């Protein structure tokens, strides 16, 4: 079959075609690796874990932003495969794009647990009390592997480079929805702006391409709701922030035991 790759050497771009006979079950990444190892050592693309966890191998495959390691050739059902670098990012070489703006936007939403008393985060005699149900409020958004596909698919990003973008906004919501977090007000100035959450017009393409089911479009709508609620609805918020767990459970009888020590602790018997 034919693999057409949009190559770029930093000054010009061109389509280059390769022929490959992939084995049954091969992924696009397998094919690219084989091209690089046997046909063209100069072809540049990122990859690492090969199992959809590290987010390195994002690229546009047959018009759709995808992870190469998770796209099987058979499911593409086409004789020619077209591969391009991710849209909306500056290209450095071939399929390698510049992610600086992407990681800076992620950082801009303060993506970490914020407590009114920061000491609570640094001293850990016990954990915060969080229920499985409260976990469910944010865990889906914590699946984000920072592959950047959502940004490549977003029509708003393409028109407004200042837009915070689906990845960063979804991460803002991940922390705001976490019962351990108290950082809404610190994050609000970055989010509650015309280039922030209000810029999203819910095209939904981010969620369509997300390989981990994060659903950034939904996160952004929930974020809008949360902002409006906190601005306009009076009264206590649903769910006070998580508190630190203190009470130990009752001891059990007959716990398993290690064998008795053979030596007085700290004496090396093998020197």
């Amino acid at each position, binding site marked *: 079959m034919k693999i057409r790759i949009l190559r770029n*050497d930093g000054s010009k771009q061109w389509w280059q075609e390769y022929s490959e006979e992939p084995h049954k079950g091969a992924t696009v990444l397998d094919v690219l690796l084989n091209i690089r190892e046997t046909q063209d050592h100069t072809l540049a693309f*990122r990859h*690492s874990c090969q199992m959809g966890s590290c987010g390195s191998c994002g690229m546009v495959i047959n018009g759709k932003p995808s992870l190469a390691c998770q796209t099987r050739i058979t499911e593409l059902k086409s004789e020619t495969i077209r591969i391009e670098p991710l849209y909306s990012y500056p290209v450095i070489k071939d399929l390698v794009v510049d992610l600086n703006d992407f990681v800076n936007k992620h950082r801009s939403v303060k993506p*970490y647990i914020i407590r009114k008393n920061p000491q609570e985060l640094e001293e850990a005699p016990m954990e915060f009390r969080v229920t499985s149900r409260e976990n469910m409020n944010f865990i889906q958004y914590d699946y984000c592997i920072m592959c950047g596909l959502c940004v490549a698919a977003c029509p708003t990003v393409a028109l407004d480079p200042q837009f915070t973008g689906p990845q960063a906004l979804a991460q803002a919501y991940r922390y705001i929805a976490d019962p351990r977090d108290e950082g809404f007000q610190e994050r609000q100035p970055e989010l509650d702006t015309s280039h922030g959450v209000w810029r999203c017009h819910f095209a939904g393409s981010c969620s369509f391409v997300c390989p981990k089911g994060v659903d950034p479009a939904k996160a952004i709508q929930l974020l809008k709701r949360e902002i409006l609620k906190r601005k306009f609805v009076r009264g206590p918020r649903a769910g006070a922030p998580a508190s630190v767990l203190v009470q130990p459970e009752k001891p059990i009888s007959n716990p398993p*035991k290690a064998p008795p020590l053979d030596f007085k*602790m700290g004496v*090396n018997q093998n020197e």
Partner: protein
Amino acid sequence: MEQLDYDVIIVGSGLAGLRTAIEVLRKDGGKLGIRVALISKLYLMRSHSVSAEGGTSAVLYPEEGDSFELYAWDTIKGSDFLADQDVVWKFVHLATQETRLIERWGVPWNRRDDGRIEQRWFGGLSFPRATYAQDKTGFFEMRALYDTLLKYDAWDRFDEHFVTSLVLDGNKFVGFNTIDLKTGNMRFFRGKAGVIATGGNGQMYRITSTASSSTGDGYGIAYNAGIPLKDMEFVQFHPTGLVPKGLLITEAARGEGAYLKNADGERFMKKYAPSKMELAPRDIVSRSIMTEIREGRGVKDEATGIQHVWLDMTHLGKEKIEQKLPFIREMGFKYVGIDIVNEPMPVRPTTHYEMGGIHTDIDGKVQSLNGPIKGLWAAGEAACVSVQGSNRLGSNGTNECLVYGYIVGNDIYNYISNDKPLLPEVPAGKLEHEQERIFSGILGRESGGEDVYQIKDELKDTMEKYVHVYRTAEELETAVKMVRGLKERYKNIRLTDRGSTFNYNLQHALELGFLLDQAELTSLGALMRTESRGAHARLDYPNRDDEHWLKHTLAVKGTEGPNLSYLPVRITMWKPVARVY
């Protein structure tokens, strides 16, 4: 060459590297104005720690019956008594603090109904103490650490910088030479303290659960600088790699009750570990699977001809699978086109973890044969402290990264605060020599015709065939000979890509150089060790031999290949006993 000065330079951005960086920064809090450089050959957040799945062991609720002694015993017995017992004792205590600390930084541990942290069974444990976040534990830990690091300002990231060598001045750390992959220029990082946290080297093998980035770079730069690598013959084969590539299917599947079955549908583990069954330690389960295959009870994969057994989760039910093993289900769909709710998965042992590593003391300080290297630490899989001995228990990898990230970060802060070290002088000619080696010696070489990928391919086949779960003198001798042949050919490699921007051809050539050295000393260490212990199983020496081999192997680079010497194991709690499960 451009030179950048930092107080602390950390190479590697996985769990160990990130945890070290955070510890230095939070301990300092601006007091000393310490500045940290974090260097990765990948982008931050792409490190292979994200692929850790099953769990992170810690004693969380001792009132419910777990204890530090029990955890230490499990780890030491699991290590087949090669772990240093004083190290294990320190490690099991700190795991508790770390597991709770990263909870506060955002890790969504699975919870019980009352809001406490849920824990589960893992291989070789006497108590369910594997703390977990679904089956993406390492990933969530990475998210929490990466995001938490973004709170701090006193650090700079150097993504996609490949470290080519470690520069020492006698027994003192000076810095790291790197190639900035984006520009192709070399940059030298000079620092008061250096940390190697570059993970393992599973890419020596064909079937491996490791990322393509696991190429032993940290081992390589340390070895080339004359630092000993310890216990490199102990390579962990994870029992359940997904056929054909060997992608990781977490031990948590068995922790949640999955069965291993042979071609006859028999739960064969009853023959090998009647009390622990599928939850025996990894070395034992991997040997059991390979025995089944060798004795003709394996299943042949139609597409590839690879022999495997079945991992059967069909009796667990959809609900449990969705809550506790969602990623494994996703992998079933995406890579083999099956739903694990209804069908078993084809699995076989896959190279997973290097128990050995850079020789350090109990605080992660790097040691040479004649004393410590001042200002240099190692942490995580890159280091061999040794917590893991000859076989790491599942759920003891991520917490080693966290615990040693903490210990090393803390130790570095104390070093800078108490010893007030100055930036070291760079020994004359070192940087020019490195530039010459890379640009003229490798990139610009016009003679020779050997291909990087061809040699790497042959290396993988050699290791897969001759240095696997079961080993014999004959096979290991063959491996040493073949690897040495490949090393000779490596001297004649010629690169096709002569460009400067993202020249992966050059990066792969440098990685291959590291892997070849490590393949040599892994095979040689295994050949010399005439016993079976943990992950090192010799068919010609089937028993453990404490009289002669209760000791660590140290390999130092010599002119004619590695020079091996040995170091006694620190036995401070329990005498070695027969290891029965």
